[in-house]
């Protein structure tokens, strides 16, 4: 009797359910930082070197990382590849203020998500979670819950929300 459960292509996913047409949507591509674990649908941002990292820190002063949501997993074959291959090295993400409603698997499933709840980065880098404070406070706001948490067609828990960006305004990182 088999006991193995293989990974599936939808274990981590970003589903842009509403937003600009595919060919003109605001996405961004960059190399991920070395050894960075970023899942499809995960919150990510650029570090000072212009590399994608999981999560979106508050930043400081006039430098406030822009929240994005990854389209691929960092180790998808078109974003990374086996040694000797020329493909990969770059991954892409939709940019939060680009006007999207998304469904992502990358959120803190222990939390409750009522409509209009402000979202920020969760305890696990790459996940989103309810914001603890008010907008323009200590944490960046990266989304506003639309319909909330549920299961998608593949049976995975997903959170649906609008992506926004309200930067933090205090020097807390």
């Amino acid at each position, binding site marked *: 009797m088999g006991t193995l459960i293989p990974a599936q*292509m939808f274990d981590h996913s970003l589903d842009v359910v509403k937003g600009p047409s595919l060919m003109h949507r605001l996405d961004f591509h960059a190399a991920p930082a070395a050894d960075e674990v970023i899942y499809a649908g995960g919150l990510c941002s650029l570090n000072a070197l212009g590399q994608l990292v999981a999560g979106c820190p508050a930043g400081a002063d006039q430098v406030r990382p822009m929240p994005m949501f990854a389209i691929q997993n960092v180790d998808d074959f078109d974003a990374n590849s086996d040694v000797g291959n020329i*493909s*990969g090295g770059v991954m892409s993400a939709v940019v939060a203020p680009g006007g999207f409603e998304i469904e992502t698997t990358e959120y803190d499933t222990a939390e409750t998500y009522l409509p209009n709840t402000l979202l920020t980065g969760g305890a696990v880098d790459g996940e989103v979670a309810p914001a603890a404070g008010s907008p323009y406070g200590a944490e960046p706001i990266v989304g506003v819950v639309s319909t909330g948490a549920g299961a998608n067609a593949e049976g995975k828990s997903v959170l649906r929300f609008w992506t926004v960006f309200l930067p933090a305004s205090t020097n807390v990182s």
Partner: protein
Amino acid sequence: MQNPEVKMLNESIVNGLTSPDTNLRKEAQEGVNDYLRLRMREDGFARRILPPVSVTPADLDRQVDTPKPVIVKDIEPTSAGAYTVPFGTTPMDHYIMAPRYRVMFDRILSRRYNADVNNLLTWDMDIRQILNDFLLKDIMAEEDRKFTAVADVIVGTVNTVNAVLGSCQWITVGAMSRQSLSHAMKGMPSTNRHLNPAIGLVNNITIWDIVALGRDQIGGDLAEELFVNGFAERVIMGLKWAITIKTDLVADDEIYMFAEPKYTGDFFVLDDVTISTKHEDYFLEFFAYESVGATIQNAAAVVKATFSGSQVNWRTGA
């Protein structure tokens, strides 16, 4: 004043690409695609080192955990070796295994250019040439950049032995001379896989150092011909030479040598370079894309020599 022939050609292309007639539009787009593909075959050095092979969806291998296209290939297995025994001895068992590797694909995109149709009609230059310059050269440069990046990872650090291959894959060989050139040629056969270089890649500056080799170094007839005619693609020292103007990828005084493609890797083209055009009112926008998967799968199939410093031994790095 525009060249009438170019003007007519440009009008024909722009009118075709902006025509409401889908057949005319398709015909114009295919004409441009054919032109670009022809140029693509000529201009990228990665494609000269590993001739591209078109693959179809039927060639792709499926995976459970990803919808990304991939092709799985076998690597020639290594044998367990033979040994001498006295009579009455039975053989040791060895279960047959063979390595495999995956060729993975991604997409290379040009920028999406746009222009007012009437502005395009004022160009003196062949619009196909504009498309070539705007779209194709950047795509080929990206192919070559990625290819060189992999080659650089494989050859590793200069004058350092790769323990797996029992030899350096990048050394300094001293200033350009017949002797240093032939020393460079020893690199690939010095590995424990004993391949021979088939194609050398140098930039358009370094090649003149080879042209400058005198009668006493490369022989009278060749020296004279190179002096008179310059360097056309030819075989010297059994090596076919690829010359690139991409000096940012292949530095002066450096030569990369690659084994024959069958020993080196793959260059699979899933989507050949294609131009996508869109016409809305008086704006025409276009971009090009392709999807390729290429590998340098055999680490022993690439070496690099730098014509500077002191000459070191391929096997010891000293």
